[in-house]
């Protein structure tokens, strides 16, 4: 049943040309930042590209596009309405949409982070393979966090108007290294990528916090949409 109800949001994500183009565009921009860092010959090219472009810009907007693609630019409950009309449980339909969005964001986040790391890798960065794997891990966790964050936003408003509100909130609140950054994906992702931690949290603590927050946001979104 979950497989059947996951089919519709997955096809919507894969077959909507606008979503495909936007995703390809953000991948291209991220990789362009990586190439630019290499051309500059920076010794910490990977750090610069990941912290300067991927964390604050590309990953949030890539996740925004992917979650918007899964829900078709509407609210979460509106996106699951066609399945509910065929007798699917609203709870399962919402869970499937959230899981599809999370899967897409995790895979895309890992791929784009690893790609940027490989392209921008500088002479004093850690060994390439280890660094690429660490970046992929941070990108995947960041993708999961952002997918849940935007799924939560999609559960507000008839057309999912909470999504852009949370995008701005993440940008504003997550930019600081204070307590406000603790409740946004941006602060923890910056810490995982080697930037300034929120409230001096360790990377491990940020990873756990981001995983817990993502689970909580996803559960709230699911509860609101079911």
């Amino acid at each position, binding site marked *: 049943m979950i497989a059947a109800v996951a089919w*519709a949001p997955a*096809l*919507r994500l894969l077959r909507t040309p606008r979503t495909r183009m936007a995703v390809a565009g953000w991948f291209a921009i991220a990789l362009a930042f990586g190439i630019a860092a290499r051309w500059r010959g920076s010794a910490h090219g990977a750090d610069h590209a990941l912290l300067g472009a991927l964390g604050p810009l590309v990953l949030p907007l890539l996740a925004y596009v992917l979650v918007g693609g899964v829900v078709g630019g509407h609210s979460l409950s*509106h996106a699951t309405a066609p399945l509910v009309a*065929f*007798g699917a449980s609203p709870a399962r339909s919402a869970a499937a949409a959230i899981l599809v969005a999370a899967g897409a964001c995790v895979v895309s986040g890992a791929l784009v982070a690893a790609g940027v790391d490989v392209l921008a890798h500088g002479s004093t960065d850690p060994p390439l393979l280890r660094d690429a794997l660490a970046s992929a891990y941070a990108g995947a966790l960041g993708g999961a966090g952002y997918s849940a964050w935007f799924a939560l936003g999609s559960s507000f408003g008839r057309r999912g108007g909470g999504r852009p509100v949370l995008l701005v909130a993440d940008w504003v609140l997550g930019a600081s290294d204070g307590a406000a950054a603790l409740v946004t994906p941006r602060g923890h992702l910056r810490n995982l990528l080697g930037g300034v931690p929120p409230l001096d949290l360790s990377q491990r603590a940020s990873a756990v916090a981001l995983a817990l927050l993502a689970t909580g946001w996803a559960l709230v979104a699911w509860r609101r949409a079911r």
Partner: protein
Amino acid sequence: MISLEEVATRRAPLALANLSLAWGPGAHALVGGAADGGALVLAVVAGATRLRSGRVRVLDGAPTDAGIRPRIGFVPVQPVLPPAMSVTEVLTLAAAIRREPEQDAEDRLRQLGIEALARRAVATLSPEEARAVAMVEAVTSSRVRVLLIEEPFVALDPRAVTRLPDVVRARAAEGWAVVIATSSVRDAGEIADDHVLLKAGAVVGRAASLDALAGFAPQGVLLRILAEDPRGLAAALAREECVEAVARRGAAVVARGRDAVELARAAGRAIVVSGARVTEIRVQPPSLDEVRAAAAGVEAATYESALDRTRASLLLAERRP
């Protein structure tokens, strides 16, 4: 199969208060305008609206139960189909969700004459075509037992309009409970066997046949006869005792009477006497207001009759030693 007990709910700007209804297998109609709440009743039965109070039972369970939900087919005026899919994929997905054996999509679509849509993408369908696809999904499902249709002939592909009544009646004959909500008395008469009249969220009457109910309306029953010699036919009809009035409207003659059957017999006699060549005979469906007035008239008459009986029994009791 369907019961509503003291149901109260609200979906702005409509509200239902203490509504109780029950339907078994067969074709049923909720007759009322857009502001009378027929669509809201369907949404309540489909489990798509939360109740403020009361209880809804569908197929011996709540409509939101996991086992009941796939057995309810609900076709609103503007159904939403999953985008980014072809029509065939939509039917396959619906079958998987309803947990029913997959049927050939073209065979299903053929039942309403829209098999040409099988390979079309949902995004390319007009609203009428999309509604016809949603209708096919519901009426051809092997799992659905309760079918709820809002305004069955509105915004529907013309190819499906002509076939829908027969298909819906066939499902009702198979034991489905079919409930339509419509503001058209003609549509209700074409599909349903019993009618609940709604006004502002309240039941104002029930009738097995709206045509028969029209006999109680101030205007009575109207019979429209299209003939080649309307003048002779009108003259013959005017001589019939049960015909209260006759009028000519172009090639048509409209006769008014109290009883539909008596009027039809009189029309038959008049046709034979006048020798008119008749193209069409049709009982003109009463308007929604006429039907409501008739229902109110029947209820008032019933009330008066009960009052008279009560008075008579009281008088009888007084006279007894």
